């Protein structure tokens, strides 16, 4: 059972090897190059790493489900921004003035609802029109971003609520709030993918949509549910993040979709759908965050960071491919 778990989730992708490599590399290189006193593999630094992985990580968990289902969602960055605006702005609405700090709960709920709704809209369009999810969400990536701007022009939407910020900065059992939310998302979606009918059907649909249809699985509703989930998670990522920062730029979240997808693919999920796991995704997210952090730690400059991150993506993909080649006798197609 345990070994099966390891086989399914860990050995399928190069990502865990790569994380270990990164840790070793930055620890050693940092020893010579860094101006820092602390060691790279310091416990606090690793806890911080998890915390910093949360914004991309929570969305990536949802993206795993979407991609397993055979779809993709490019609009998550824009949903991230919209949910942030809903949360921060609704805290200042006069209707909620009497609520005191309870407004936080209301605002969180509203923001999560908004995310789920935007996700549902994507899902419904994908389902009912039959247009490919890549195209639908490429469109709504623009459209939702337009909504962000319509809300407050080009100005940031801000509201500092110190109770909220204290909550975001709080620690429980040594882990930060954001880390807890990341962990919870991973756990819940992992359970969904492994143990629920919805999760299994999502795999079936991503794997062979025709087969699923022929077996009488109603493909559309499953897709909508997954889009609702990713909308919700993008909003969750947003509320967790903006609780701790208090201001949304209308451009926030741009390119998140690409980093999220990168993390998911690095984690071993197939772009074509039908296979993948959130555990691998978590690895992908951590690997990317570690890379950014490590490069900063050893003092790489901007152009180097861009160059290295780009090439590393390719190298990881290459190693992953090598690990999965069945041997020289494999069919060459």
């Amino acid at each position, binding site marked *: 059972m345990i070994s099966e778990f390891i086989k399914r989730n860990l050995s399928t992708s190069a990502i865990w090897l790569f994380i270990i490599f990164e840790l070793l590399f930055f620890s050693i290189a940092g020893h010579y190059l860094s101006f820092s006193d602390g060691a790279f593999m310091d416990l606090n630094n690793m806890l911080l790493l998890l915390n910093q992985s949360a914004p991309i990580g929570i969305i990536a968990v949802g993206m795993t489900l979407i991609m397993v289902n055979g779809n993709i969602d490019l609009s998550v960055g824009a949903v991230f921004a919209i949910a942030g605006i809903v949360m921060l702005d609704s805290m200042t609405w006069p209707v909620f003035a009497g609520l005191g700090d309870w407004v936080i709960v209301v605002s969180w709920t509203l923001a999560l609802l908004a995310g789920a709704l935007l996700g549902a809209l994507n899902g419904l369009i994908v389902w009912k029109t039959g247009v490919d999810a890549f195209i639908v969400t*490429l469109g709504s990536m623009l*459209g939702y*971003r337009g909504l962000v701007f319509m809300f407050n022009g080009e100005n940031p939407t801000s509201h500092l609520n110190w109770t909220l910020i204290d909550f975001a900065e709080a620690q429980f059992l040594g882990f930060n709030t954001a880390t807890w939310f990341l962990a919870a998302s991973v756990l819940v979606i992992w359970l969904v993918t492994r143990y629920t009918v919805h999760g299994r059907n999502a795999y079936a649909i991503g794997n062979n949509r025709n087969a699923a249809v022929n077996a009488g699985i109603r493909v559309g509703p499953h897709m909508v549910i997954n889009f609702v989930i990713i909308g919700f998670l993008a909003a969750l990522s947003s509320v967790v993040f903006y609780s701790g920062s208090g201001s949304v730029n209308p451009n926030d979240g741009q390119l998140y979709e690409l980093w999220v997808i990168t993390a998911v693919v690095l984690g071993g999920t197939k772009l074509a759908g039908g296979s993948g796991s959130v555990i691998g995704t978590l690895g992908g997210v951590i690997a990317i965050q570690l890379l950014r952090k490590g490069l900063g730690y050893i003092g790489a400059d901007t152009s180097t960071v861009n160059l290295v*991150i780009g090439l590393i*993506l390719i190298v990881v993909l290459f190693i992953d491919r090598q690990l999965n080649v069945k041997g020289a006798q494999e069919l060459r*197609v």
Partner: protein
Amino acid sequence: MANIASKQVLTVLGKQGILIAFVLFMVIFSLANSNFLSLDNLQSVIRSSAILGVMALGVTFVVISGNLDLSVGSMMSFSTIVVLDLHDKLGPNLAIPTMYLMTLGLGGFIGYLVGYLRLNSLIVTLGMLSAIHGLTLTYSGGQNMDIADKSNTWFGFFGRGEIFGLPVPIILFILLAAFLGVLLAKTPFGRKVYAVGGNPTAAAFSGIPRARTVFTCYLISAFCVATAGLIQASRSMGSQNTVGQGLELEVLAAVILGGASLLGGSGTIFKTVIGILILGFIQNGLLLMGWPFYVQFVITWIIIILAVWLDISVKRGKLWVSN
């Protein structure tokens, strides 16, 4: 039977759906703004679409071969910066071919990774988007690039010149579109691109060199990007490192709007050109109406979905999907 008649209408709509949508926009915008159909404006739209359009031509090849190219934006920045820098160092005669070679080198690298090593194109080109940006910054030291003496060079020809009253960028765009259109539709190579995109395994079983075909598609894409960079550089004679940033998604949107399937195996150059023009005219039309730029986002969203929806619902013979 009325049923059959309406089916026929739908079929015509579907075959020419994108074109009809295009004409519709033109009518609406020209009614809304009298300047819209002025010759000046039309030229200015096509001219600014030319850069995006030239890139979209190459990306069409890549998409039909079943892959993606998200690196075109940052590669275009690279070409622009390089040719501007070399212009003052080597003179335009040498600068232009050198820039083409360097850009083709990048395209070849991507083509090698995706074609020969069979790495996933989405991630490879995403990685290259970042890596090439880093390369450009290293090359330029992060500085803007400007041609020192802008008035004493013929370099401006590609971006500002005119032949028989037609701006050169438009001419380049048309020539390249015609050439690549024929290459795709009429030659053995074009056929291979469709085959490799349609079913790579069957293509391999038919002795078609998948790797070389994909590789060539990326070279074509890089060639187009280099041309776009040349027009850009020539037009402004100076540039920032980020001049092409974000164009990859606009280009992709245009190719999709033209009806190419992301799964590969379908699409044409002509339709991509229509896709580009639609995007260009929407942007311009809304700008002319004085609507803020973000309204344009929302409208582009709606149009992309409506256009593709119309296209596929005609193919399947009904509007809505039930299961």
